[in-house]
């Protein structure tokens, strides 16, 4: 039922497409969630949970478990973003990517691979994939990548990111809250950006540290530096009257949500 409803709404959206400029289209899509995704993944359990999680985030999600099923769906429908596992039982996902590009489709593609191999990554990106996400990944990470990839598709708004009254300019690294610019330190900006790409997800502090400071920060016994940065950032957001803020969750992690929540 839900998927039918989404599909009809998508058609409405299609009608708007011509009339709205790209920025508005993106905002509508982002806020209403009528983006259509295709998950090509042969593992049933992973496919199911990815579909469930992305549907919860408001996307219309279709799935394919084999090379041929995926080929069929790609030929028949348009997708905004395709998540492609390159290790399929009946064919190499990179071949599928080539196929998508040969059809002249504009579908965004994120490669998902258990082979965290540089060659695959380079080949995939050369073939026109938009991003490469090695397994195992966090849903929050996938969700952020999808948003980022979709954002890149709409060039007009690619430089700013808005959630309620918080606005980030990614190029000049300026932050505006309720129309007023505030000053953030480099890491504070990175943390805010990280959370804004993953709204509603509870982010483990270790994952946050890795995401902001780099992959190799893995000192489980020392997160003092994270606490300090977040404390300052929260204070700045509160003082500026932001609608959303970073909330500590039982001391295990953080969540970006409405300030009043």
């Amino acid at each position, binding site marked *: 039922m839900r998927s039918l409803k989404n599909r009809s709404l998508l058609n409405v959206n299609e009608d708007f497409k011509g009339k709205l400029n790209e920025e508005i289209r993106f905002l509508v899509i982002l806020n209403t969630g009528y983006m259509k995704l295709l998950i090509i993944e042969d*593992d049933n*359990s*992973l496919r199911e*949970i*990815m579909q*469930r*999680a992305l549907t*919860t985030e408001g996307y219309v999600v279709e799935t394919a478990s084999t090379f041929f099923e995926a080929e069929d769906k790609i030929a028949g429908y348009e997708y905004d973003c395709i998540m492609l596992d390159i290790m399929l039982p009946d064919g190499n996902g990179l071949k599928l990517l080539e196929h998508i590009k040969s059809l002249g489709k504009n579908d965004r593609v994120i490669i998902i691979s*258990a*082979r*965290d*191999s*540089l*060659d695959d990554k380079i080949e995939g990106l050369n073939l026109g994939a938009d991003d490469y996400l*090695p*397994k*195992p*990944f*966090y*849903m*929050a990470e996938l969700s952020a990548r999808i948003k980022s990839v979709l954002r890149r598709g709409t060039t007009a708004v690619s430089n700013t990111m808005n959630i309620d009254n918080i606005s980030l300019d990614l190029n000049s690294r300026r932050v505006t809250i309720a129309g007023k610019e505030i000053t953030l330190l480099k*890491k504070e900006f990175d943390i805010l950006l990280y959370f804004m790409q993953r709204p*509603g*997800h*509870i982010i*483990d502090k*270790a*994952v946050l540290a890795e995401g902001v*400071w*780099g992959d*190799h*920060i*893995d*000192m*489980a*016994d*020392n997160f*003092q*530096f994270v606490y300090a940065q977040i404390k300052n950032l929260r204070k700045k957001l509160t003082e500026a009257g932001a609608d959303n803020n970073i909330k500590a*969750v*039982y001391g*295990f*992690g953080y969540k970006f949500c409405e300030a009043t929540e």
Partner: protein
Amino acid sequence: MKLITRVTLRLAIVLLPIMIIWGTVFFFYMVKEINDETDDSLEDYAEMLIRRTLVGKELPPPGNGSNNTYSIEPLPDSAGNGATISFKDRRIYIHEKKETEPARELTMTFLDRRNNAYRLVVSTPTFEREDLLRAIFTHLVILYMLLMLTILFVTAFIFHYSMKPLYALLRWFDKYQPGNGTDNMPADHQTQEFRKLTEAARHTIERAESYMERQKQFIGNASHELQTPLAILGTRIEWMIDNTTLTEEQFAELSKMRQSLHRMNRLNRTLLLLSKIENNQFPDRADIDLVEIINNEIGIYSEIYGDSIKCSTKLPEKFIVSMNESLATTMITNLIKNAFLHASEEGTVDISIRKGELVIANNGNEALDATRLFDRFYTSGKKGSTGLGLALVKSIADSYSFKVEYSFKESKHLFKVRF
């Protein structure tokens, strides 16, 4: 001791007494022969003298140039009752030479027709014989020594020549490093034993390499295969945390599960990285400035540790090394992280590059086990350590033939990388 030396030495030990015995036997045989000859000639001379005496012919003058001397004297009747003959070595005075010389003397008794007994003493100087024996002795010694040396030399030469395939094989083993394969292994097909040895060696190495290859593949495959289940587990826990209503207790449990999973992910990723380094899957090189990477990392860790750890550096403007960029970063990061992580509270970290050598030091209390430090999963018991960091460093260094060393001096752990 080399086999050839040992064989030659043993041969010499056995040959020497045999040669000495042979030589001695030969020498004494020669002495006997020469004495017999002398005695024969004395007997002939004596016979000639007796014949002449009996037929009443004139006897040769005593000094007839032959250095032989003789004397005939009659014996009292009672003494002569048959022909006796005896030889003796003694020194006699030779008139012509006016000196005493060793001589061989024949004493004989004979009867004339009237049955008068005479004693004939004939002597011949033996200095010629002595000279001869001395010459024989010298030559014997020289010849036997030469013979022995020749035998030893020829043996050594032939031995060395025949053992060439073995030496070639041994040289090949010296150069062999795991993973090289058996392609350039020298093979001798002519000698049965060497053929067998080569075959056995080839077989052993191929088996060892195939085990190693399989082990490498196993680690790689296992890590690959774990990626999807890990992703499922992580995604499902995340979904529960984000989308379901949990009690505080449930949330705490799930968070802890997620933290463990995170650690497992990291471990798995590092294992994959290790197996990729070992399979040479980072072929591309570039000129990398290590100083830039180091400064960058110090920035991050100084931020994390704040003022509790003092970091000092002695770095040149630039230090360019040709290697893969991500491996360079991984190596430097792990070394610096290691130093910061294990520096004690209020500790120090010193980083310097001098004479093509990177030294990263942190203060510590006692030396670590240098033999196991770079092994996989060897940890000092510090929380959050995977025990793979230094294994990773070693593996990267090995793949570029850099040398990594650990030492403990003046209460400092020193990690040196020689490029």
